[in-house]
């Protein structure tokens, strides 16, 4: 009852003119950035961040959340129409969406994608809202050991899910954790790794890490690729129509809808399992276990619905741990966390426990529902216009993105040092991409590192320097055991692959081609 009352108040806030305006702007921006390869919804929330500095916290988070939601949907248009996946999570849509589009015209697969985004978004938002209160109650009972263990779990799953090489993911994570050590230590008040540079005393700004690695790094990468997009349509070929599937057709694939909604929502909660992983897993599950698995890849609705539901459902799944535990599970939620911190608000269980900030949480939760419905309604019309952005020359878009990154970072504290930091992290981001090191572990390490360290040190102080305390407490022990499994599985798989290659090269080659 408490939740419903809070949600009703939240809806009332969302429909206030300014909040509503930000929601609509967010939806339109999300679609705009998600159809462009090289931009994407993470870049969208990063570029929008400077505009939130002077806003109240509610419209600021509503704007970013709406970009995130609609960003998981907008890319389906260019994927289905022109075989241009705007985002990595759109790649599975190529296999059935584009194929169906070629066979029956693009209106039908676009209709399926719209229905999938709507269902995925609403189901996961409902499930997550229902879980908000219980999760907060659990988190309120956390002690230092539990928090430390939760952070370790978050970081290990990020490592486990980040790319093909656990070695590279761990190195990326360590670098992020070391970046978080720069500055004055919050427990002992000692300067660490500042090298006599005064600006480093405040530590590295989160915005600089995010904007540098995801924003500028991506731009540098695309410069190296020659700023080309394949399959760009001619000016006359940009036409979009959507035709909705019938109820009977939707009912036929109810199993796919249920499975993908559940998997998408659940995986969304797991740190590191972003929209891309969720989308691929949902498609993979249908391909393995779905009733129409043999038809997948030939332009079947299940092949469109599963990945699209997975992508959109993961957003609500990501937002809730960030709101209730203060643990972001993806790059986009990390930016949203940064927006909270820039407004002087620390997300976590106290956010919902505190009556003053409770309404903010419910407004954000209510905005998730409105965003999902809004993106389907607005998308229906807006996408006809926005798809023309593909005709804009890449050099122009690139210049705009660079300017937003640099000036946006400067706007945070009016500090040139922050702009230098962005260039440094842009270079690191580019080198990470070049050498195939995953970005997410470093970014999440930089964000979660201080929380993990503070709780670890607090636990050591409380337990008289007994470092085993987190392992012996029931909840933290269980979380650390899960972390160990999450860590061991990919590492053992890599070792197994290496052993196989070393001693049975023909089997390894067979597996390589098979996968």
């Amino acid at each position: 009852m408490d939740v419903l009352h809070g949600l009703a108040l939240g809806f009332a806030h969302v429909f206030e003119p300014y909040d509503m305006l930000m929601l609509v702007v967010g939806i339109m921006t999300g679609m705009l950035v998600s159809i462009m390869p090289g931009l994407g919804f993470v870049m969208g929330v990063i570029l929008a961040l400077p505009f939130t500095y002077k806003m109240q916290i509610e419209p600021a988070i509503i704007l970013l959340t709406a970009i995130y939601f609609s960003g998981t949907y907008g890319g389906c248009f260019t994927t289905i129409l022109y075989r241009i996946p705007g985002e990595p999570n759109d790649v599975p849509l190529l296999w059935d969406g584009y194929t169906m589009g070629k066979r029956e015209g693009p209106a039908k697969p676009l209709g399926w994608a719209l229905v999938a985004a709507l269902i995925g978004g609403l189901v996961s938002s409902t499930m997550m809202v229902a879980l908000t209160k219980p999760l907060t109650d659990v988190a309120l009972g956390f002690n230092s050991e539990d928090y430390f263990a939760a952070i370790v779990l978050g970081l290990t799953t990020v490592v486990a899910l980040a790319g093909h090489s656990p070695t590279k993911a761990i190195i990326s994570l360590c670098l992020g954790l070391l970046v978080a050590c720069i500055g004055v230590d919050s427990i002992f008040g000692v300067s660490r790794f500042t090298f006599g540079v005064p600006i480093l005393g405040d530590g590295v700004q989160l915005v600089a890490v995010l904007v540098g690695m995801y924003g500028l790094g991506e731009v540098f990468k695309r410069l190296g690729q020659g700023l080309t997009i394949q399959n760009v349509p001619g000016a006359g070929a940009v036409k979009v129509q959507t035709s909705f599937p019938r109820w009977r057709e939707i009912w036929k694939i109810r199993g796919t809808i249920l499975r993908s909604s559940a998997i998408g929502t659940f995986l969304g909660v797991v740190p590191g399992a972003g929209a891309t992983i969720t989308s691929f897993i949902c498609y993979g599950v249908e391909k393995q276990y779905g009733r129409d698995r043999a038809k997948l890849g030939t332009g079947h609705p299940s092949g469109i619905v599963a990945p699209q539901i997975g992508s959109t459902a993961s957003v609500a799944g990501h937002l809730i741990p960030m709101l209730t535990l203060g643990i972001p599970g993806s790059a986009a939620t990390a930016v949203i966390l940064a927006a909270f911190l820039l407004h002087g608000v620390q997300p976590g269980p106290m956010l919902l426990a505190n009556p003053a900030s409770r309404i903010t949480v419910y407004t954000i939760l209510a905005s998730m529902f409105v965003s999902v419905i809004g993106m389907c309604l607005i998308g229906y019309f807006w996408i006809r216009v926005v798809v023309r952005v593909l005709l804009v020359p890449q050099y122009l878009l690139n210049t705009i993105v660079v300017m937003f990154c640099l000036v946006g970072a400067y706007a945070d504290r009016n500090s040139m040092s922050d702009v230098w930091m962005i260039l440094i992290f842009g270079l690191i981001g580019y080198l990470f991409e070049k050498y195939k090191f995953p970005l997410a572990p470093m970014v999440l390490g930089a964000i979660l590192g201080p929380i993990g360290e503070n709780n670890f040190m607090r636990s050591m102080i409380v337990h008289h320097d007994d470092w085993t305390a987190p392992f012996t407490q029931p909840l933290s022990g269980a979380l650390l055991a899960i972390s160990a499994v999450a860590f061991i599985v990919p590492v053992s798989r890599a070792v197994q692959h290496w052993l196989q290659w070393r001693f049975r090269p023909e089997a390894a080659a067979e597996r390589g081609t098979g996968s």
Partner: protein
Amino acid sequence: MVVTVLKRLTPYLVTLALAGFLYMRADQFGIVSLPGRPGPDLWPKLICVLLAVTSLVGIIGALFGPAQVDTAVADADEALLSPPETHPHLVWFGMGATGVYIAALPWLGFFVATELFAMALLVIGGMRRWILVPLIALGLTSAFTIIFMKVVYVSLPLGVAWFKLISLAVFRLIGVH
């Protein structure tokens, strides 16, 4: 062959060296751990050790592991999303231009520096309509000045001497006081 191995080794050697360097720096913090009493160096040292061990694993993997792990050719769909790097020199031009821009910003002021930087980025990005380049750069610079000064309320750098006068004149023109 040697070049390929060296290329694969380089990132791990760099991270190993970094781990060693930072571990030694952690020993020089104002307060350090004593036996039975952890200090502010404990956490960074733990991470440095983890980084060093992982880097060593990476080095062993690069020396004795399969080459195709690092250079796996992405499938056709992934290639659509992220084509291979064909113009590495443009990356360094872009970074260089960005570095010069950041260094020049306090001296030239936002408007002049951004106009020049936007022109450079457009040319690096491949625009070759020489008459349009300064005009588009001017349009972008004006738009960013208006957005950040009148919407986001950021105090942008004015520059020094003549550049300051130019910045002030432009700001007056767009109604910023």
